[in-house]
């Protein structure tokens, strides 16, 4: 039978503040020795009082703005009570009735597996039910009859983002999370690193026969520490559950863990006893009011987001969708590209016949996506560490556009620029790389090549026209790659035709 898969996702994002949500301990304890970032507040000692980290509140509002949410300007904190050793107070301070952000949506593109756009790709909108601010728990390590608790993570600001059940397959889940990850990184509010637990997601999913309305039994999947694990786990569960339903079996309401090594889900616990969290207003914290002025300040801090940038790069610079995505995946790369663009914004098209919205956008994009990315990857350098400045790459683009050098030479020049940080023009001059477009010089080289290859010339004149390319190649070689290839092509042809007469 065919089934609809219905997925909602809860994502916990650790906010990248310096200090914790309610105390001044460091919030960056990943990889640190256990319990070195702990104080009476985040260890849950009686009498210790929490104080709200303003920056964490701002970060959560920034995400709300980016996700098109309404912001609760009057909210208060609540205690969610349960017993577990990773929660030293016996309750978690969280937002329940009035989440910081609610009723928003995230729009993103669902692409093929390599990130490319094809005829199956589409734009998708997932509604965001809420995003609320809370504190993270500690970490447990189990060994024999004891468990060991590390409270470094306890009290780190955590934003829980909950979608409506608007996601219908593993690819959409992957695309949603990858878009969310891009956004938190663009906003600079979280590293978004799933491998380090800075972004943790728990999809819940159910199946129902196509064409029916009632929701099936919901399972929750945990322990997903990469985007591909999310995709793998959902695809696996969809297959497992539809096979079970086909056989007439019932789906049990359970929490599943994903075993990345074996590529299977494993039951973690049956969800029989519903928790009784006994939420009630946190008496240790006064309510939080957000003034219009504060909210405006926060709005102003939200930068242009990837999907808006992509649209603008296409309409303003005439770039392809593919190029636009490549340039905007990483905010630092996008900013670098834009600096190059603005360095050349006052210049008109150099080439009168070329219809382009920005004279150098396409060449800049090609250099960044191609040669520059290759050089950065090979040397393990990030774009804000490289020696080339955006305006310098623009200089190279201009030399190619003006046909001072050809694109083969440009590859050599960009490598030299990458290694030394020198200007393109200086490298071209110092190494004598300028393209030869002087027809008298080219005519002489062509004459030499024709004289050196009498057999090929004869065969060409007898009708073997393929030999033209051979002779052009010989001329390029003789000019050490500096000849203008279009000119060689036409001059060579003319020279050969003259011999027919």
């Amino acid at each position: 039978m065919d089934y609809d898969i219905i997925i909602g996702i809860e994502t916990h994002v650790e906010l990248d503040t310096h200090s914790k949500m309610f105390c001044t301990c460091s919030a960056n304890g990943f990889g640190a020795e256990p319990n070195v970032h702990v104080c009476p507040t985040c260890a849950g000692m009686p009498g210790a009082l929490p104080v709200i980290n303003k920056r964490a509140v701002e970060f959560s509002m920034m995400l709300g703005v980016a996700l098109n949410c309404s912001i609760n300007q009057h909210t208060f904190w609540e205690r969610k009570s349960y017993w577990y050793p990773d929660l030293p107070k016996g309750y978690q301070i969280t937002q329940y009735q009035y989440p910081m952000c609610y009723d928003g949506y995230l729009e993103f593109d669902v692409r093929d597996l390599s990130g490319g756009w094809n005829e199956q790709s589409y734009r998708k909108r997932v509604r965001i039910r809420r995003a609320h601010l809370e504190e993270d728990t500690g970490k447990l390590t189990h060994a024999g009859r004891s468990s060991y608790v590390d409270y470094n993570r306890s009290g780190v600001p955590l934003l829980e983002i909950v979608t409506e059940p608007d996601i219908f397959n593993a690819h959409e889940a992957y695309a949603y999370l990858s878009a969310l990850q891009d956004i938190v990184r663009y906003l600079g509010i979280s590293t978004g690193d799933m491998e380090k637990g800075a972004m943790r997601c728990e999809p819940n999913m159910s199946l129902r026969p196509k064409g029916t309305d009632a929701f099936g039994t919901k399972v929750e999947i945990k322990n997903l520490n990469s985007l591909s694990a999310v995709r793998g786990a959902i695809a696996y569960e969809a297959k497992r559950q539809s096979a079970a339903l086909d056989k007439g079996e019932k789906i049990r309401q359970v929490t599943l863990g994903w075993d990345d090594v074996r590529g299977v889900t494993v039951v973690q616990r049956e969800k029989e006893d519903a928790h009784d969290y006994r939420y009630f207003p946190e008496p240790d914290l006064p309510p939080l009011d957000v003034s219009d002025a504060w909210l405006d300040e926060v709005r102003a801090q939200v930068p242009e987001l990837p999907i808006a940038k992509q649209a603008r790069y296409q309409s303003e610079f005439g770039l392809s969708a593919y190029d636009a995505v490549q340039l905007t995946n990483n905010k630092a790369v996008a900013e670098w590209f834009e600096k190059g663009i603005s360095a050349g914004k006052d210049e008109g098209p150099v080439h009168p016949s070329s219809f382009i919205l920005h004279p150098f956008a396409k060449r800049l994009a090609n250099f960044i996506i191609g040669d520059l990315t290759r050089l950065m990857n090979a040397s393990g350098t990030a774009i804000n560490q490289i020696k080339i400045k955006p305006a310098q790459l623009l200089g190279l683009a201009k030399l190619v556009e003006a046909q001072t050098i050809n694109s083969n030479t440009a590859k050599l020049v960009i490598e030299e620029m990458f290694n030394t940080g020198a200007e393109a023009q200086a490298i071209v001059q110092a190494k004598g790389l300028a393209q030869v477009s002087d027809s008298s010089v080219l005519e002489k080289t062509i004459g030499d090549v024709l004289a050196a290859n009498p057999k090929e010339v004869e065969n060409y004149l007898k009708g073997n026209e393929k030999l033209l390319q051979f002779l052009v190649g010989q001329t390029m070689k003789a000019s050490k790659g500096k000849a203008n290839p279009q000119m060689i092509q036409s001059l060579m042809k003319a020279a050969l035709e003259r011999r027919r007469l």
Partner: protein
Amino acid sequence: MLTSEQVNRVAHLARLALTEDEKQRYARQLSAILDYAEQLANVDVSHVPPTATVLPVRSVVREADVVNQLLTRDEVLKNAPRSDGESFEVAAAITESS
């Protein structure tokens, strides 16, 4: 009057072990408290905004996001009933948290 089952449930949530006598006594006392609070149901609060506190204080925040480590690990672990010198040690916690 609360049932003994309800008292058991509340006691379990607070991880309290109660004797039969205590259960009966707390059933009476808890019921009295609930009845007292129940009087609020007679008041029309339809025009009162949800109130989490009666104090006028609002939005007390830490302006600067600055780290200040108040205790060393040794000091923190002095409060641990058991520890291995690095972590708080507790009886094996087998079920997963939520």
